[in-house]
């Protein structure tokens, strides 16, 4: 019973990592860059949703849509202003820029909204059901369900739509894609838009489960999600999904059965072992589509 409860909680945590990891992996797959500001876009999404819910008094769905809208716009603007001018620069320069953007967003948020923690309102059903002597929150199940929906939707989009094909083409060979008449810059913008929109969904799920909103909120989940993306094979969408879920489950089980103090060390140890055996990550090598 206890094990089942840990497993479900692990999948819930992993689902949030997975949705965030999608943002990292898609951008990497197409733009070949690591967008370290992704975690901070989540933070922005959390603040927007927080103010939409408490300040504007919007119901949940419009608040999430507003957060997605703002995050999508942020993602596109960040890409245009910070990354596009560096398209030809070395990947390290882009990486450092991404870290710079991350700090800019964190400190900007601190300036705008102060560093004190705000508590995210409980908008998603806070009920629970009993499992023997233990209890599981519905929220966890909703998180897992949303993650599966997002994955399915994204997979369909990438495989079945024209833009999706263009994205796959760009991830394989940008030069050839340009020759085929694909507007690579537009596709990169679309990728940032989708990744950032998903970040908004992740932020609402994250903050519903862990209702603290503060300027560095996105840092730790962002790093864990990036780890999940590498774990699953960066550039691969199913890899991000698998990596996220595994990371969440390993983290929770390590906490439960080994030590609450060592759980992160164990998670990263597993990552190192996986990368030693499969340097491209779990699903990284075989994936022909790098979207």
């Amino acid at each position, binding site marked *: 019973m*206890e094990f089942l*409860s*840990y497993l479900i*909680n692990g999948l*819930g*945590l992993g689902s949030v990592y997975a949705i965030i990891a999608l943002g990292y992996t898609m951008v990497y797959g197409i733009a*070949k860059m*690591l967008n*370290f500001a992704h975690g901070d876009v989540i933070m922005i999404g959390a603040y927007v949703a*927080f103010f939409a819910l*408490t300040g504007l008094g919007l119901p949940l769905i419009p608040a999430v849509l507003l957060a997605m809208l703002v995050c999508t716009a942020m993602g596109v603007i960040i890409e245009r202003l910070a990354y596009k001018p560096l398209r030809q620069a070395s*990947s*390290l320069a882009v*990486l450092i820029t991404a*870290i710079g953007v991350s700090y800019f967003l964190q400190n900007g948020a601190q300036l705008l909204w*102060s*560093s*004190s*923690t*705000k*508590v*995210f*309102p*409980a908008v998603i059903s*806070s009920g*629970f059901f*009993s499992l023997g*002597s*233990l*209890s*599981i*929150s519905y*929220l*966890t199940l909703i998180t897992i369900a949303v993650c599966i929906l997002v994955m399915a939707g994204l997979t369909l989009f990438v495989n079945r739509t024209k833009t999706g094909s263009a994205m796959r083409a760009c991830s394989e060979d940008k030069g050839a894609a340009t020759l085929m008449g694909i507007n690579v810059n537009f596709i990169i913008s679309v990728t940032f838009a989708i990744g950032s929109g998903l970040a908004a969904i992740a932020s609402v799920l994250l903050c519903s*489960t*862990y*209702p*603290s*909103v*503060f300027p*560095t909120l996105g*840092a*730790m*989940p962002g*790093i864990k999600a*990036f*780890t999940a993306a*590498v774990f699953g094979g*960066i*550039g691969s969408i199913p890899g991000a999904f698998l990596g996220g879920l595994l990371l969440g489950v390993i*983290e*929770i089980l390590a*906490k*439960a059965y080994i030590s*609450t*103090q060592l*759980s*992160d060390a164990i998670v990263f140890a597993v990552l190192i072992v996986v990368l030693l055996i499969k*340097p*491209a990550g779990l699903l990284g090598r075989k994936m022909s589509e790098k979207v």
Partner: protein
Amino acid sequence: MKNGFVKKALAVLTAAVMTAALTACGGAAPAPAAQTSAEAGPAAEAAESAGGAIKIGGSGPLTGGAAVYGQAVKLAAEIAVEEINAKGGLQFELNFQDDAHDPEKAVTSYGVLKDWGMQVSLATVTSAPGAAVSQMYKDDNIFGITPSGSSLAVIYQDPDNAANPYGNVFQMCFTDPNQGVASADYFAGHPDLGSKIAVIYKNDDNYSSGIFAKFKAQAETNGLEIVYEGTFDDSNASDFSVQLTKAQAAEADIVYLPIYYDPASLILTQANQMGYAPTFFGTDGMDGILTLEGFDTSFAEGVYLLTPFSADADDDLTKNFVESYKARKGGEVPNQFAADAYDCVYAIAQACEAAGVTADMSASDICDALVKQFTSMTFAGLTGQSTWAESGEVSKSPKAVVIKDGVYVSAD
């Protein structure tokens, strides 16, 4: 090519993790951390202020994650100084520096304050910066009293053994171990609260692990049963499902939380989500949970905490202070840090008065006089009756309060 890039990225990631950990540290460890205070100013500088006001220095986080504590202390100290000056008699002047809860910046602030001619000090608001400057207060023989630096490292050169006190750095708040002992005694005296205790503490934080260590020892002495010990740290400070599930599975009916209110709010919310309703019992770090923006205070209903100060007390002293604080802070109710700071200034004033300290005395002379006064006087303030040991440790009894209908109510 690709793998090479990922490796580079991982290297950067490692750096980012470390930065994040540091940032998180600054954000989460702040409150009652440590403060040390030393006061005094070099003789020459003090002489310049002859006939003027006694210069009180102090530093605390006015920016950054712990800003809420520093700002509360600064404002409360300002209120106290204004009130004392308005009465005539000894005059004081306050200079409060920002240390951003950073030991290095606290050292810089100390230098700034010394240049300014500080004669007495509120030391630091938080513990880690306090531990960094206590030795300087000692070397310069400046008297300091920290409102909220609760770690032993603030007043002892050898905090692990509580030995070699600095001797001129005093505390207004309880030391961490005192709270652990007081909590265990409280449980022993109130068997109706429950008999199976689970503890969730933050193992990378001195405040939390310090209280826990003493609590555990005292719990053994008192024959209490601890059924589960769970920890978390900065990188894990959001998901408590495992700790709560374990506590629930161990049938704990008391969950002891010697942690700050931020993570505590998450624990209370998650316990509520999973329908687990033991008695939660916090320490002074829990103070502030009711003013957390957006927090559903119904989750904190029935939570016990140890605190020296209750803003709802109806004595005149508390009422007046709460009123002036609210008037200056947009209606915000003062927390325990504000009350401690207010008491610090009044305690300094009382001691200066009794010792005949004047503004033209050197910091070192003031220090000697104040140490003598503090170790012999009794001070009655917002946070109760205080007396001090030679080590600088305060002795006052923590009061247990329980949250009912969103306010603190004294528990028996």
